[in-house]
């Protein structure tokens, strides 16, 4: 199980970074979304992996997983949603302002194209 999680985080990071380095805004946004997944799982995994041990207190529970990383990741998910939303809107505005969706704006686009 641990190997699956570790490799999944690695693949998500690699895909995220590759997309992050593209020249157009939309792939960059998708890359950021993938990186957010990777980061969230990374943080979550710091509490190690446990199955059927949710941190809900009860008399019949066999044990509890670490609740702290979960609390951190919960807010991180919401914040990364807010960040993604801001980035999407920025890319939209920049596209509308400059007529290009290149990450460096219209001018750079002409130079490099």
């Amino acid at each position: 199980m641990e190997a699956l999680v570790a490799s999944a985080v690695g693949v998500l990071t690699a895909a995220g970074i590759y997309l992050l380095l593209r020249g157009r805004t939309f792939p960059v946004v998708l890359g950021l979304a993938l990186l957010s997944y990777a980061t969230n799982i990374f943080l979550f995994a710091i509490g190690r992996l446990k199955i059927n041990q949710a941190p809900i207190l009860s008399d019949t529970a066999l044990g509890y997983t670490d609740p702290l990383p979960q609390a951190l990741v919960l807010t991180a998910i919401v914040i990364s949603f807010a960040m993604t939303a801001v980035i999407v809107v920025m890319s939209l505005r920049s596209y509308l302002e400059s007529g290009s969706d290149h990450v460096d704006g219209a001018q750079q686009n002409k130079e490099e194209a």
Partner: protein
Amino acid sequence: MSLALIVMLPFIGALFPALLLRAGRNACATATFTFSLAAFILLIFQAPAVLQGETLHASWQWLPKLGLAVSFMLDGLGLLFAGLILGIGLLVIFYARFYLSKQDNMGSFYTYLLLFQGAMLGIVLSDNILLILVFWELTSLSSFLLIGYWKHLPAGRQGARMALTVTGAGGLSLIAGLMLLGHIVGSYDLSVMLQHRELIQSSPLYLPALLLILGGCFTKSAQFPFHFWLPHAMAAPTPVSAYLHSATMVKAGIFLLARLWPVLSGTPEWFYLVATTGLITMLVAAWIALFKDDLKGLLAFSTVSHLGLITLLLGLGSPMAAVAAVFHIINHATFKAALFMNAGIVDHETGTRDIKQLGGLWHLMPITATLAMVAAASMAGVPLLNGFLSKEMMLEQVAHTAWLDQPWLMAIIATLAALCSVAYSFRYIVHVFFGPQRHDYPDHPHDPPLGMWLPPAILVCLVILIGLFPQTFAGALVASSAKAVIGGALPEYHLAIWHGVTPALWMSVIALIGGLSLLAGYRKVRSAWEAGPHPDAKAMFQVWIKGLVQLAQVASHGLHNGSLQRYLAWMVGAAVVVGYGAFMNSSLSAGSRELLPAHPTAIAAWLLLILGCLLTVWLHHQRLLALIMVGVIGMVVCVGFVYLSAPDLALTQISVEVVTVILMLLALNVLPKTTPKESGFGRKGRDILLATSAGVGIATLVWAFLTRDFTTLSDYYLAESLPGGGGTNVVNVILVDFRGFDTYGEITVLGIAALLIFALLDGALHGGSAAKRLAQWLPDQARAADRHPLMLVVAARVMLPLALLVGVFIFLRGHNVPGGGFIAGLVVSVALIMQYMASGFGWAAQKIRLDYHAMIGSGVLLAGLTGIGSWLFGYPFLTSSVLHLDLPALGEIHIASAMFFDAGVFSVVVGATMLALSQLSQIGRRAEALPVNQAAMDCDPSHPLQKDPSWKP
């Protein structure tokens, strides 16, 4: 207390000149004078005790962990310098009132001057070397302002910049040096440090520390080869030169040499570094001064030369030389400040400072000439004046010192320097005031008003009085300050005019006769000098600075060429290099934690995720497909959270996933649907390399910690969640209770993000090229014929109350089982968005009358008030309390105050999500330019179509 007040008074006073400027120039000068005078009087009150050998202390802790304390100390050396700073400061303030013209902004001048004065006092009175550094930098900054006071003059700006660059660089060196010294001793208290001579000198760090400290001192005190900034700083108004460049700032380096003399001096390193620098500076600067035609240039180089003399004396390392050094500090300050003021008078009255245009002023300005003659004669070392006394002491010391194993070499060089000094001093007298009277002075020279000649006259009186009765007028001060420098018993000495026929006397005689004959043959010497090479320090400095700037440009343009791709590549690359570097240098063995078996379902989900990632990258040119793949990945992540005991995360992830995808779709509606293939083979290869190395690194890291055991502080939360927070869902209790302050910050960020989105899109809707482009936008994809399909509208409408109920349910139970404000907010948002999607934004906005801005604001407010509420009961911010109610119908109910906090979270999440999405759909609607539909759906079966009576086949 009064020690701190002495330092603080100028800083407090600095507020007043600028404020009082409207009340007139006199009010402005009076305020400045009053504050300096108050500080001076306070100092005088302390003087008797200090002169009797006491050392006064005052101290407050500031940052004890860093060893930084606000501690002041007043001993003889501090008294001497503080006296010079305040005494000459008062004269300069007085003089400047008459010197500055009506066009000059007197308010800012006096403000800068007082700032500088306070900073200088801070240096000489601090007992903590970190505090000294703070004041040291302050003098560099305030002197920059003073030197560049005449902003309209390029020379002033350049001179100020050069001074700041050189002294600032020296300041950095000094910081490093003093840090090393503090590290050796283990304390930053000067009083403690001065007790550890043996420890410091035996440390291997002694030499680096010494070199760095000398770097700071030599730049500040304009020692060769850093002397070049001082002549260029002469572009400052003359009162500034008289103050900074004779008595105070340039002496700061000397002060520090003297201050650290007990622990640093006495080693061969100290002798050869300090004495040699002083000797060279003394000779070279005196020689150059002889050929300067600008009065202030001459004085500047003469200052450099005299600073070299003091440095030389301190460098000799013998107690007697230290006494001479202290004595010369007093003497030089008096005659040099007088001469600078004198040069200012000449400049002010004749309109020029060029010696070639001057001469014969003796009859035109007799007072000025008399003062100049006495002060310059003292500078030359003529007997009966104070300059003679300390110069004799210097020559006496030098005559007994062997340098490079040559007993006479140092004496010869010092005599030569003294000879040049005589020559330029008398040149100041002869070429300016004697000779034939001219008729082509730029102005009509006459003696200045009393206000301008009185301050130098007071100084000249001191020159004569100390010269005639040294023991009476300077004896006590010299003794107490020399004692502070030496740090032990004073050597046997007496300050007197006549010491008998000594080698020093012969050297003085040679210097005097030689100097006068040099001046007699000045024309020949001058032409010989002019034929030789003249390295221009300013040009060299500029070449050097230009090279540095170019280097910085190459570096920064290489890294920061304005392209986001470049920045990100560098960032990722640097992170990869640092990460791998740390990894390689650690000796990690394989982990020993027991691992979980991989269930076949988990392997299937993993395969799906990997496939999703690969497809996203593969298909990213087709944006819609790539977005769908990201959605798939999100689902797998969500399922993963369920499987790995994180139900709260799964709920949050799935609702965020829905909202994110809708948001991206809305944006993609307007954005281009495909990404052009631009990246070349090389670029792709580079990015793949960066991405895979980062991915492998992260995967290894995750693997490394997943295979190891760990300690957590979560046991506390698990134990305290129910008794302390009143809930069994530990994650939620952490969010709204234990770490409620964090959550409070996060919802604030969420609200700000939503407002940012609103502002960005609102701007695009109203005017500018964005609005124009939006109006011209054409759909690039086929549109569905039914914009508001019946099935979707009915389903969304039926689901709305249900979804709201689920939202309330999730919210209420959140404290005990998975749920809570975040998730409930997202669920409700999704339900509301469905209405927008089904019936269109315009129609839905007319029905859903929620003010999302107000929801964000009131949510943050509610959460904040809940936190503040606990103050009322005497608990810290956001302390939760639980109320147990026993209601007749409902049974026992627990109401935790955290629930109100969670309600605030809920409100912000709904408000922020909806604000962002509704604003985005506004954009879409504007782009499509469609009218708002009248009905909720395209075809409403409950209203059968009426047959048009006018229709005919």
